């Protein structure tokens, strides 16, 4: 008796699920346009749970709509092996060009080679690829950005003081490059780097790591966080510890950070233009597909945002 009803319930659940998959599948996929077959471009993106990359995706999507391309977006969830699978899957879908925003510059090489083998041109966005053939690389210069932040701190502190750095995901090239630029800026000054620890580009970790550092360091003049999420986490830690006079500089210029600068909680951030990286990606994809020559590197401008110019931004 009971078994029967359970089975019926089971049947209903499974069919519901299949319908759900079907509906999502149909609505999730872009509807094919009338007549002319649209050219497809694949975008394999490192993660979509970070506002920066969501903005990058939006920029690309907007440009694709404008130029009449269908954009297929796959999310690698910060996992290189997932990225490899995604490239395999997107190559099955008849794309004519692959835009890829790698999880890691080294580990993406074989995925790029997959596209090379299928004769699909590849453009890298934001992070480069250390292998395989890439038509062009579109990114903001993270080393220059790190240096920009470092120089600002040096200038504000008058060339001396105790500084803390919050690092991004160990091994991520953006973390390496921003750190490198920052170290270049403070080298040869009287700035003392008293602590430098990874907080994985994560706000919660930024807070907990900063709490620990605050315990250990009685004197801190400035913090450079390699992204805004960590910077905002650090600000929370500083506030709840009741410490004063610590200047926080972030990177990425996400909305929350801009607000924090307006509120005077944060000193500065380095603005990348993720939407511009995305839209330039599609723009250059269009050029490549039309057979035009493109440069091997397309730099996207960075900008230091402080209280003085934050209002001019939006």
């Amino acid at each position, binding site marked *: 008796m009971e078994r029967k009803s359970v089975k019926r319930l089971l049947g209903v659940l499974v069919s519901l699920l299949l319908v759900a998959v079907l509906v999502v599948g149909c609505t999730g996929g872009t509807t094919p346009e009338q007549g002319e077959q649209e050219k497809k471009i694949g975008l394999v993106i490192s993660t979509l749970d970070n506002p920066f990359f969501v903005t990058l995706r939006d920029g690309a999507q907007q440009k694709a709509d404008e130029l009449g391309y269908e954009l297929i977006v*796959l999310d690698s969830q910060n996992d290189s092996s997932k990225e490899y699978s995604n490239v395999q899957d997107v190559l099955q879908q008849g794309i004519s060009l692959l835009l890829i925003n790698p999880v890691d510059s080294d580990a993406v090489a074989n995925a790029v080679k997959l596209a090379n083998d299928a004769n699909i041109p590849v453009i890298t966005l934001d992070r480069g690829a250390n292998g395989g053939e890439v038509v062009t690389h579109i990114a903001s210069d993270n080393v220059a950005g790190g240096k920009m932040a470092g120089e600002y701190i040096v200038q504000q502190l008058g060339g001396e003081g105790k500084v803390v750095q919050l690092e991004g995901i160990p091994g991520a090239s953006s973390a390496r490059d921003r750190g490198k630029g920052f170290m270049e800026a403070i080298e040869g000054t009287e700035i003392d780097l008293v602590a430098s620890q990874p907080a994985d580009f994560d706000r919660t970790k930024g807070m907990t790591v900063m709490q620990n550092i605050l315990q250990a360091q009685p004197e801190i003049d400035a913090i450079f966080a390699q992204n805004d999420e960590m910077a905002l986490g650090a600000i929370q830690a500083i506030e709840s510890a009741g410490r004063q006079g610590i200047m926080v500089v972030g990177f990425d210029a996400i909305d929350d950070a801009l607000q924090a600068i307006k509120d005077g909680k944060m000193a500065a951030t380095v603005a990348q233009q993720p939407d511009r990286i995305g839209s330039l990606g599609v723009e250059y994809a269009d050029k490549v597909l039309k057979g035009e020559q493109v440069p091997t590197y397309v730099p996207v401008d960075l900008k230091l945002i402080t209280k003085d110019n934050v209002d001019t931004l939006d």
Partner: protein
Amino acid sequence: MLNQTKKRDWSVFLRGMQSVIGLLGLCIVLSILTPRFLKWGNILNVLTQTSLNAVMAIGMTFVILTGGIDLSVGSVLAFSGMVTAGMIHSGLNVWIAILVGLVIGTVLGLVNGLAVTKGNVPPFIATLAMMTMARGATLVYSGGRPKSNLGTAFGFLGQGKILSIPVPVIILFVVFIIAYYVLTQTATGRYIYATGSNEKAAKLSGIKTDYIKLLVYAVSGFTAALTGMIVTSMLDSASPNAGNGAELDAIAAVVLGGTSLSGGQGSVVGTIIGGLIIGVLNNGLNLLNVSSYYQQLIKGIVILVAVLIDRRKR
């Protein structure tokens, strides 16, 4: 008595069939929704993608059959992959480097087993500790940087093909055959089931349950390391973040395959089916262009529904 065992065989068979039916249903729906699903190239992709998770899930099945759990597999994967990459960089013979990686994984598994048996630490805690330790060790050993360019000989493991079948798929097949044989045809296999269904009774009947537990954690460590070899070879790069969250996919495959988390019931056949369901779902949702946000939602629902059905049946 005889009647009862017959009935039990039947229900075990049914439980196995239920996941097969689920898998077939999924495949049918997907091939209706997208013509690209059933292409040979795509099928090979699905199998290769599945093999990464399934090899590890087979080891996990051994552990779960004894009523344990192994949360450390993702980190063990990363550490053994990283050490092998390091050995190759230092000029060691590729095969010896692989052997070293596999031995390390097995030893880490043994440590888990020792903590569980001799230390009386609950498996969840023992392997949680190992998960953190092995990840830490990976970061220490690599300095947070990936190790790449490992050469073509090593690349064969993840990228090579034998008679147009990808090597990872062949590895999965071999691992599966061995696991199936051990679990169904040997005394050790019976002892594993006995330990899981009633440890006290097993002990009283003379089974060295501690030895059996040591063995299953070692097996799980070995298969995690083997997966580490495949992933590292596939990407030609050992990443310090490799296998983050991989334990969850492995456990999901085991559970989807109808193996009971309380031990004593289940099979590696089920695990392969479970792994395929996850692999097909990942691939299919990608082909259907379903947003990654919905993908995670759907996968979660599938796992929950499958386990609910399984629970009700008992």
